[in-house]
């Protein structure tokens, strides 16, 4: 079920919230939330709900065994079993056909049969949450949930079920004790802001760019030149940001309606000045999950430079593969992996030559890498450093935009074709007639692309929300209300969120 659908807005949401907030006890409230989540998932695909039950069920039971086991070896064994089962489910449903198909193609004969099973909704997200829960219980960061209901309540919460943010059990369990008895006006106002702004990003910007620019231009990949190639890349960069951050904003708004504050997933990613900083601003809950449960267990950065480089590369490669079973995602992960390795070698090199401070500014961000969180902002830098940072932002933006071409393309051939156009190898590419748009519509759509870029560089929903919260004016409430009406009027042809398929 899509957030941007009549069924969700006018039937599911009022009923689910009604049951949730009128429940007579905390236990019944949890039950209402879990039932709503299973209905939310099962109404689209009952098999998806069954898979979700298996994944959450095994991680709850096995985390209990981990906590109760006395010997370290047993604890490790239960942990390995739980992680193995969850990753196995992910591998079976998401990657098996891809691997079997690739193997069959390489062998030239069918070696393995294809299953052609539909990808269970949200499996990539709740599987990661389930793994982090079991690992955190193993690490004794959190006590195991007393009842399955307590666990399922937090892992299967419907606002974040299908496309995140990846809210770990450990991160939100503390909010349960402080849950209010009523939703409250403050939360309702926050929910209205986040949900409306997210929906506007998705429906008014992302979908328009997708239909008018991205899809037609990628369909003509072989005819793109420099200008049309870059329009395609920039339009998709804005589309995916508006789509995914819009979804995340809507999820945060819906989380508030359930009384929870879900974690932040984006922080002006277009303004990143290095590959490392990009991953501290883009899909934050995934990159921090990869850091804590993959990169650090692999050895992190506190080891030899060669080993650390391998860790960065492997983390990004698997992060790319997490997005989907296709060689384009593998290539996209490798692309970012190489960038992170180069970025960190650059940092180490500058540190060695005693110019670390200047070097960090030159690279445009904290050289400590993915794990450090250190940032160099324009205010803390001198004029020269500010220009260097701006140069870093421009280079990083162009680099990530080119990366999104690989991500969007249906195969590596199409990606190469678009990149060839962007490189100017097919001439200036002023052939905007490929879009078959009347001049006025083209101008309007390009203006929308420009607006999307401005928003992506400067306007963060969370900061905007803070500003509105500090001075909640009625005119802003009216404007947001009208914006939601405009969005609802656009629901006639709902389009799926890009991240739903992951």
């Amino acid at each position, binding site marked *: 079920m899509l957030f941007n659908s009549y069924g969700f807005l006018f039937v599911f949401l009022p009923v689910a919230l009604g049951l949730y907030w009128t429940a007579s006890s905390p236990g019944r409230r949890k039950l209402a939330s879990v039932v709503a989540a299973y209905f939310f998932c099962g109404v689209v695909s009952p098999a998806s709900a069954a898979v979700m039950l298996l994944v959450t069920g095994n991680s709850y039971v096995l985390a209990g065994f981990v906590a109760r086991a006395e010997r370290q070896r047993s604890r490790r064994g239960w942990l390995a079993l739980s992680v193995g089962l969850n990753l196995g489910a992910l591998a079976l449903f998401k990657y098996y056909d891809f691997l079997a198909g690739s193997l069959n193609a390489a062998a030239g004969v069918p070696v393995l049969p294809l299953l052609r099973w539909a990808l269970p909704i949200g499996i990539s997200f709740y599987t990661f949450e389930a793994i982090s829960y079991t690992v955190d219980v193993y690490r004794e960061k959190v006590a195991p949930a007393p009842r399955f209901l307590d666990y399922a309540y937090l892992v299967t919460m419907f606002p974040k079920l299908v496309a995140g943010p990846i809210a770990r059990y450990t991160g939100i369990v503390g909010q349960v004790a402080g849950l209010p008895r009523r939703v409250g006006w403050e939360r309702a106002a926050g929910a209205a802001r986040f949900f409306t702004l997210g929906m506007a990003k998705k429906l008014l910007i992302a979908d328009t760019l997708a239909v008018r620019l991205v899809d037609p231009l990628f369909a003509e990949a072989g005819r793109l030149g420099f200008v049309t190639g870059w329009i395609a890349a920039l339009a998709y960069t804005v589309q995916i940001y508006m789509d995914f951050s819009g979804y995340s904003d809507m999820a945060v708004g819906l989380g508030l309606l359930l009384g929870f504050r879900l974690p932040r997933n984006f922080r002006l990613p277009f303004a990143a000045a290095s590959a490392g900083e990009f991953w501290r601003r883009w899909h934050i809950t995934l990159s921090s999950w990869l850091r804590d449960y993959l990169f650090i267990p692999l050895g992190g950065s506190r080891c030899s430079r060669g080993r650390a480089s391998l860790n960065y590369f492997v983390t990004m490669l698997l992060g790319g593969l997490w997005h989907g079973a296709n060689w384009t995602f593998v290539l996209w992960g490798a692309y970012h992996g190489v960038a992170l390795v180069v970025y960190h070698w650059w940092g180490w090199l500058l540190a060695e030559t005693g110019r670390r401070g200047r070097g960090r500014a030159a690279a445009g961000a904290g050289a400590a890498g993915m794990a450090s969180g250190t940032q160099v902002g324009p205010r803390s830098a001198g004029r020269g450093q500010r220009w260097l940072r701006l140069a870093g932002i421009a280079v990083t933006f162009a680099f990530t935009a080119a990366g999104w071409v690989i991500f969007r393309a249906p195969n590596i051939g199409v990606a190469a074709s678009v990149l060839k156009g962007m490189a100017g190898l097919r001439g200036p590419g002023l052939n905007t007639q490929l879009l078959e748009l009347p001049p006025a519509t083209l101008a309007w759509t390009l203006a929308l692309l420009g607006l999307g870029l401005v928003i992506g560089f400067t306007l963060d929903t*969370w900061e905007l929300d803070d500003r509105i*919260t*500090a001075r*909640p004016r*009625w005119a802003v409430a009216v404007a947001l*209300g009208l914006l939601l*009406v405009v969005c609802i*009027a656009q629901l*006639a042809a709902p389009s799926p969120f890009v991240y739903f398929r992951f």
Partner: protein
Amino acid sequence: MIDSTAGNEHGRHAQSRFALTFLLTVSLGLLALIGFNFAVNPFGYYPTLLVRRPATGQDRRVKMDLLREYSGVYGTAEDRGGPVDAIIVGSSRVMTLAPETLRELTGLRTFNAGFSDALPEDYYAVLNQLIRRGTPPKEIVLGIDIIAFDPGPVNQFSALTPELASSLPRDSYLPGLVARAKSLLSYGQTRRGVDLLLQNAGRKPPEPWPVAFDADGLLHYVEWEIGIAQGTFVPEINPDVGGGRLEELDDARRACFERFLTLARENGVRVRAFLTPYHPAVLAYRAVDEVDWFGERRAAVAGYLQGLEKQYPGFTFDDFTDIEAFGGASDEFFDSVHYFSSNGDRLLAALYRMTE
């Protein structure tokens, strides 16, 4: 994010005012949208008749008006009066089949009741509508697209056209109602409604419609036909059409089609069906596909329809996907699937030659 004013009475009050203003705005905005769409009713989805509509817009609405007039329900003209004996049913791919040709072939008074994207539920609705009027046809010429049995929701265009909505199969009623309710909030309808008001006020010229209909429902592609007359027409052949892989024919659509055949049999209506033709370039393009999805799909639909011939006396079927099957001309196509009336004449002649 929400705690900056929490714990402060003034702040809480401000937040509650904000939330209430927002809710009030959304409620009033939605009510205004619903009220406007219902009152102006630009596509004729509702019974409202406050604003005059031109005879353009969605073709089902126009076809139903034409059929009413042609079959003399309102007794508008003597020479038009009287029920129709035969109807042509199907998607836009049958809309250039000339009723006059069928009349010459059979002597039956014919109306072309084809409309865009018609699916089995639409075939049923048209026949049911005529039966409910007490004027069932003797004969139906039915063009079936090979995508007609794909899974999908009930065709909402028919669900949104009052006469057809009331004649759809019973299990389509609820989806139809939902479609009409949803359309009350549709921006597309609002935009069209504003245009309509501006046109009625003389502030905007009526939008040219690229098609026109004869009184008997025959479609004319106005711009293309002008191009043909002037010698400037270039056919728009896109070989990449025909649908993707089809796992299996949809059960609901098959059931609906069989209910249509049952309804026809019970009312003594003969149904001559055919698979609608493609331009030869499409078949040539598909023939080099690594996996012949088009061929698989065509064979599945044709096999299913041939099986029904034995079960439903009075139902016959021919596969005209390939124009050679009816002696069609490849240079008489507007695009990959829409053909000139002259090709349609050959198709009708072959259909009656083969099934007599």
